[in-house]
């Protein structure tokens, strides 16, 4: 089994719902973003860029690419960063020493460090918490906890707390344009395999040799102009 995600750039409308829902469901502390959406080359978000005299605009959502050949895992001295049986790259918060070597190794700049104590958001009841409410352990590894320890690294887990219980990542559920498709890439009957079947795809930063498991289906807008 190999979990993967396809992102259809023709469908993405750049609304950033995925970034926000990810932050919410995973209780990401302030200043931490596992998922971000940007428009390449645009001076401001959501503006166009001129290429060959024509204005163009494309949105690229980017989070952990769950690399098959993950440099972050390779450099992690404690094994806090590891790949599980589904091919998902995870961080065990209880083993991370906060050396940040993985941050220097990840070419996608998706790893986030807890530079300070997480300061929760106070709600009307004075105790508002957001996100999945309990610790989630996988084979003993603490891969999700609503209140993060200070000084450890975190990143997208493909929502391990949901996918391990048969669900799908929050960004896929939340995307209003259905631009994100998740599933087992090794199963030809899975939704992702069916969606990608016969279609062209690309990966980001191919030259790094990281073999990402997040596939981008190129935009066809503007073709044949």
């Amino acid at each position, binding site marked *: 089994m190999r979990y993967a995600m396809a992102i259809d750039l023709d469908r993405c409308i750049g609304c950033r719902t995925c970034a926000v829902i990810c932050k919410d469901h995973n209780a990401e502390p302030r200043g931490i973003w596992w998922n971000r959406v940007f428009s390449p080359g645009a001076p401001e978000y959501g503006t166009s860029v001129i290429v060959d005299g024509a204005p163009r605009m494309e949105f690229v959502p980017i989070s952990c690419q769950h690399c098959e050949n993950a440099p972050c895992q390779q*450099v992690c001295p404690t094994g806090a960063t590891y790949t599980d049986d589904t091919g998902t790259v995870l961080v065990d918060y209880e083993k991370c020493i906060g050396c940040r070597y993985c941050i220097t190794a990840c070419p996608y700049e998706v790893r986030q460090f807890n530079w300070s104590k997480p300061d929760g958001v106070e709600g009307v009841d004075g105790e508002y918490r957001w996100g999945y409410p309990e610790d989630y352990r996988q084979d003993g590894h603490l891969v999700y906890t609503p209140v993060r320890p*200070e*000084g*450890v690294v975190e990143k997208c887990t493909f929502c391990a707390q949901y996918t391990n219980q048969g669900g799908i990542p929050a960004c896929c559920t939340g995307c209003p344009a259905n631009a994100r498709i998740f599933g087992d890439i090794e199963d030809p009957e899975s939704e992702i395999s069916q969606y990608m079947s016969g279609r062209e795809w690309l990966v980001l930063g191919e030259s790094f040799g990281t073999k990402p498991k997040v596939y981008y289906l190129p935009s066809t807008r503007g073709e044949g102009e």
Partner: protein
Amino acid sequence: MTEQTQHTRKWPIILAAVFIAVGCAAWICQLTMGLLVGSGMSNTFAWGLMIAVFAFLVGFGAGSQFVASYIVLANRKDLMPYVKTAQAVALAGAIGAGVAILIDLGHPAHIMAMITGPNPTSALTWDMIALTVFIVIAIINVIAIARNSKALKFWMVLGLISAFALQLVEGLLFALMEARVWWHSFIMPVDFIVVAVVCGLAIAVIACALKKDEFKPEALHDLSFLLAVAIIVHLVLAVIELAIVCFGGSAADGGALAAIGSVWLFYALELGLPLAAVFVLLLGKKDPAKSMLIGGVLTVVGMFFHRLMLLYPAFASPTLYVPLSNVASPSWPLPASTGLYNHTGNAFEIAQGYIPNFVEWVSMLLPLGVALAVFLVVIWFVAKVGKPAAEASGTQDIIEAKETVEVSEPADDPEVVEVKEALVEQERGEGR
């Protein structure tokens, strides 16, 4: 011992104690307040001053081991009085570097994870192993010097190998990072070894210049010349490193160059200070000891900027450049999450600069203080343990070296009388 000597012996101890106390206070600040206010780092500039200090100190540690091993293995009797100092710097640098790495950890409480489950594919694991082995061998070498052990040459060979391995692993720790064009070249591990030689010789040149009376002028000249050559080799490697990025042609190469441009003064000092040192060392014939002192200090400061410049071109530039998906277009960097929203209000940036903040500068005193303390302890230990051994054997190399200085000049030469007096005074001091 005169009152004045007592004073001069006391101030380094006081300095080390103050450095450790103040540095500790800054570290505690970082631990309690968090690195958000305790440093100037961010998710994009994730390694800061402490990593530069780590590389700086480890360079002096390994480099001084190179020098100590060279003196013993090449049987340079004329430089033998410097061996114990070199070995002390070797141990002090390595332990100081270990402290720097510990301070830099975000969650040091989890450190046992590194001991119970080290990841063999990580260069950082190998770095810790190499550093530990280096420290153990350096301690054995200190004891071997103090006891004038017959096995000293054997341990010095191991010291040489461990220093070489340490710098190699250190260089690979950076060079293997494909994401960072500034590091990802074969130059990095080679230059780490050369820079260690430069650092070891720079400290040797300074120390020997300060005690010029203990050495023959030819020995001092040799040290100066060796340092100048090592600096030239390092500068050639630095130029090749720059050329690789200049002619790389990728967007990431351009990003690294832009980052160098943003801190051009650091880069100019990194290259300019050691270059100036070469001229001073080779041309300053009028007062060689003074030239050595100036050249050595210029080199040490230059090496600090060199270590800082490990960081800027690598971190102040984006790593991922993305083109449009369906049309030939340039590639552009995507902004990344800085993690600084709570502090600066900036959530996303294409590249983030870095200015070490006050707490970071102060916390730097902890590894420096520990290094100084280790140095003083080693010097004290060698004097304490070494004296009876020297007297008992009467044949040790270090004593022989001093005799070499004595017999090489006519006995009534006033300079030699001065040297003898200096040696006698030194031995008296060491015995205390």
